[in-house]
């Protein structure tokens, strides 16, 4: 299955050096992350050392080796958001879903990361939940979006 998907992705590229980043993006879009075997295959496909694929994948913030949660939360730490309370919002989210920035819940329900700017700065502070952007966040809105689980809130502070 996965083998087949990977083959299909690769077959839509010529295998030039410049295809590396677009291929990594396509693989990640389909697999949710960059599996090790996939990077090996990409290296062979383009004809470059595997270390070079790793080197590029680890340089860019978009790429990840671990899977995301089903609900992927992106908190903005851009300037406009920072000035309007983004650190506070991030702490609230961490409290509500019980993980810290960069982590994934063990049941793969949630993952949380921060980004330099979502580009909705006029509505700061902003977060993104999967593809949707939520602006003018407040602690109350965080609670609405992430109802605390029955087990009670985990304080990660």
């Amino acid at each position, binding site marked *: 299955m996965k083998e087949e998907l990977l083959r299909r992705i690769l077959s839509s590229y010529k295998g*030039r*050096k*410049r*295809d*590396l*980043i*677009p291929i*990594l*993006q396509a693989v990640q879009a389909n697999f949710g992350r960059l599996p090790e075997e996939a990077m090996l295959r990409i290296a062979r496909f*383009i004809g470059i050392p595997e270390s070079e694929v790793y*080197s*590029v994948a680890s*340089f*860019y*913030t*978009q*790429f990840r080796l671990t899977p995301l949660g089903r609900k992927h939360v992106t908190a903005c*730490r*851009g*300037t*406009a*958001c*920072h*000035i*309007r309370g983004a650190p506070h919002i991030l702490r609230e989210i961490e409290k509500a879903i019980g993980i810290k920035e960069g982590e994934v819940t063990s049941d793969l329900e949630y993952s949380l990361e921060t*980004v*330099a*700017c*979502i*580009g*909705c*700065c*006029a*509505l*700061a502070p*902003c977060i993104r939940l999967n*593809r*949707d*952007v*939520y*602006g003018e966040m407040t602690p109350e809105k965080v609670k609405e979006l992430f109802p605390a689980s029955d087990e009670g809130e985990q304080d990660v502070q």
Partner: protein
Amino acid sequence: MSNRRCTILVCQGTGCISGGAEQIFSSLEEEMARLNLEESVQIKRTGCHGFCQRGPLVIIEPESIFYSKVKLDDVPDIAQSFLPGGKPLEHLFYHDPVTGEPIPHYGDIPFYNKQERIVLRNCGHIDPEDIGDFLALGGYEALRKALFDKTPEQVIEEVKRSGLRGLGGAGFPTGRKWEACRMAPGEEKYVICNGDEGDPGAFQDRSTMEGDPHSVLEGMIIAGYAIGAKKGFIYVRAEYPLAVKRLKIAIAQAREEGFLGKDILGSGFDFDIEIFQGAGAFVCGESTALVLSIQGKRGMPKPLPRPRTAEMGLWDKPTLLNNVKTFANIPLIINRGWEWFASRGTEKSKGTAIFSLTGKVANCGLIEVPMGVTLREIIYDIGGGIPGEKAFKAVQTGGPSGGCLPASFLDMPVDFDSLVTAGSMMGSGGMVVMDEDTCMVDVARYFLDFTRRESCGQCIPCRLGTEQMFEVLDDITKGRGRPEDIDLLLELSDAIAHGSLCALGKTAPNPVLTTIRYFRDEYEAHIDEKRCPAGVCRELTKEKS
């Protein structure tokens, strides 16, 4: 009522979409159909209209009626208002925050009437996914004019004389860059549009690409003709999926209409454009890093001395790199002539500046003003001042490479050179307003946290220097500051600014330098009195409450 009377424009910028503008659009379509109004009223999606904070926005033309903060529940009423005898809905008008007066027309709202929307003229008025809208407003006329009435040299001359300076940050004269690229030896040349928009707190390039993608394409095609390139790339960061989608549609439509591809409009000139999605690295906005990234490598700036990108860029071929807004200005200059362009703005900064006005200011959004207006006009007249009766403290421009300017600069004209003289810079157009509740040491710490994360790590002054500056600032905000820290920061700033390999490191100390220069007392309060005057630094405010 057989012919169309009005058009309802529903903003579909990222900001308005986050407020539910997509549902509003589809529900409005259904409702109008139900009332049999499709014949007389046209509904259109548009790109960002600028006043993002009041979104979702709905505008009714030709009357220029402006509805803001529209909700799904308002849709039936909006539709009804188009029935015979219907009236505009007053509760959706913008209300003057001081007098409470309703203002029905957007042209009368201070946020808009102090602006000069030239580059953004189409944003919020045309459907970015429909080339027909763009053509109806004279789109691609400039391309026709360039291809058939002008030689490449004449195009470059026009751009040179206009005085246009690059809007990606440094303000390098665009015409000179084009000329250098045309003169550079080599058959194969490239045009690249820098849509990376790495500055946090800025969204003007995003809004331009999303709201008026064809203007950017048109500028790039003209540039390709002028320098002798056949191929262009738009480098858009992956966080901007809507911009990518709209650019893709625009490219496909432009190809279909013969504005892109082989033998453009029968002129014999070939040019095509490809989108490259950046994978998230601030440093990739730098020209040599951006080029390496398109080539499939780590985006690390090349050390100086090095040939200019205009001479040796993508795959070592001459490459013209300009910002999104720089390209969007080109069709205007070709259409209206360099004299028109040069007559606007200041002596050394021509034309308009586009800012993302955000932070502690009443009206946040995307604005366009002539170069030379004062910060006060931007923040108070257009921005509506500081909300909550708070006092203005500073305005940050230029992102991580820029600085924070205090109230004494409010009457300074905004242009490339004045900002640099004051210790800041234009950058790509972020403008973040800060009030008395903002701690300037925390802001400096924030920016150094950004640059240390984004440093490509190639050179030691930048990699270790920004880390060390961050730690000193972090200590100060946590109550562990020592009296000698300010001097240490100044010393580190000097070393990093001089020793770094690229502009990321060279400008990284700017936020620290300006905050020390203009807000030294705040640093001293943190260090000497273990007190955060703005009440932001948590470790220093706990015992106070």
